[in-house]
């Protein structure tokens, strides 16, 4: 419906109650039928692809970091730190995400190590975001339930723009780390972080404070910004690509539906972007089958493509839809993009599906 009202996204507000009353909480979602034998093949874990990709990622980090250090004080340092920043501040988002699902490596402890490291570089508190992301998968873009809705309605242009360099994420995380280091959670956080897990949130926040204090101390002692260029600041100056990726996943699409075909995007990307993003451009497929590792998502896409809307041909094409949609939502918050299913696909829960298109 084309309303002009501002939506309340609080997890403890009236829309949380409304979502429960409408049967949108922990509900059954649409997913295409895939034969069990084939799904087992797709879900199969392996250390090989993630070991290769992580080795390449680390090697590029070292090379660009060393180059940036060698040329520090000259303009030649800029391209090295552009690369370092993207690898540190953007590529870690997908590493954080995949290892959080436990699907990157077959070996559990390697996943856990990558999760802690990538969480720090990605300024996402590990335990806090593990539970936040579990909720995102349970209640994807359900208002009052999902705290990971990147473009709420009406969109806040200033917040979206400053977050291109991660300032909003960094500010929110700084406040949150300070609160958690002091041993406190908000009422909203208590709705998705179980009591038995809260000590981990506090412990991790205190460890982060200690690490950042060491880096700042090093910068002061050395009378140089260089330590901060390696740890801390790249989460800002290298953040832009993760923000572009993240916003493309759901922004401008339908809320309060139980069909990821209507609230998520699959976007075709080139191999370089897919390396940096670990194939999360297959985002509809990921939400439908979060057990499938990133390296098997192209095969999963081929398996279920007939049931899915046509993928966007590029990130550019996705943003040609997203930007005008967000601009329109600023004056017309009820507006959203209706994703058409192909003739080969069946709508899920026709009454809900039709409501999306009739609104």
């Amino acid at each position, binding site marked *: 419906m084309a309303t002009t009202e501002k939506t309340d996204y609080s997890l403890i507000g009236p829309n949380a109650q409304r979502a429960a009353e409408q049967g949108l909480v*922990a509900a059954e979602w649409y997913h295409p039928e895939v034969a069990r034998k084939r*799904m*087992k093949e797709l*879900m*199969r*874990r392996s250390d090989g692809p993630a070991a290769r990709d992580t080795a390449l990622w680390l090697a590029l980090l070292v090379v660009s970091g060393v180059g940036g250090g060698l040329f520090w004080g000259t303009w030649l340092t800029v391209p090295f730190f552009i690369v370092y920043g993207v690898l540190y501040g953007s590529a870690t988002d997908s590493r954080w995400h995949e290892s959080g*699902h*436990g*699907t990157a490596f*077959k070996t*559990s402890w390697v996943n856990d190590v990558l999760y802690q490291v990538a969480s720090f570089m990605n300024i996402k508190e590990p335990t806090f975001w*593990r*539970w936040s992301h*579990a909720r995102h*998968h*349970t209640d994807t873009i359900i208002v009052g339930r999902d705290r990971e809705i990147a473009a709420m309605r009406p969109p806040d242009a200033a917040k979206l723009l400053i977050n291109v360099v991660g300032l909003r994420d960094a500010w929110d995380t700084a406040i949150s780390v300070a609160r958690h280091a002091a041993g406190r959670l908000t009422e909203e956080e208590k709705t998705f972080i*179980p009591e*038995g*897990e809260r000590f981990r949130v506090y412990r991790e926040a205190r460890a982060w404070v200690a690490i950042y204090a060491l880096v700042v101390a090093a910068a002061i002692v050395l009378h140089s910004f260089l330590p901060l260029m390696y740890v801390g600041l790249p989460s800002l100056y290298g953040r832009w690509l993760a923000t572009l990726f993240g916003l493309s996943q759901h922004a401008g699409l339908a809320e309060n539906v139980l069909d990821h075909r209507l609230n998520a995007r699959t976007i075709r990307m080139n191999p370089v972007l897919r390396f940096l993003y670990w194939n999360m451009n297959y985002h509809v497929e990921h939400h439908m*089958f*979060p*057990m499938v590792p990133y390296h098997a998502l192209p095969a999963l896409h081929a398996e279920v493509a007939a049931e899915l809307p046509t993928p966007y041909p590029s990130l550019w094409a996705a943003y040609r839809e997203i930007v005008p949609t967000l601009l329109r939502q600023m004056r017309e918050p009820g507006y959203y993009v209706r994703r058409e299913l192909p003739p080969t696909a069946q709508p899920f829960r026709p009454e809900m599906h039709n409501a999306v298109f009739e609104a």
Partner: protein
Amino acid sequence: MSGPGADGWVEACAVDDIETEDVIEVQCAGRTFAVYRSPQDTFHATDPLCTHERASLADGLVQGDIIECPKHNGRFNYKTGEATRPPARENLCIYPARVEGGRVFICVG
């Protein structure tokens, strides 16, 4: 499937119904169970749903002694019921299982 005998054992499925290192969902004695065949060819039974958000474990992935929930990737040891990876925190209820004459029996009571 018929109800359990006086000793609580009930026939659940045929051995060949489950591939090695896999899980299926079975209904017996008026209830639903997840029945597993381990890589060592031993059989095990648990409650059918993840203790986190009630997803069917029969859609999950068996790796060694571990069943991974299809919804949030929480993990359990299906031999002991222990929850081994968040968001699974509450252990899974397990049931004794045995094989006789190519059939899998589980003790439900």
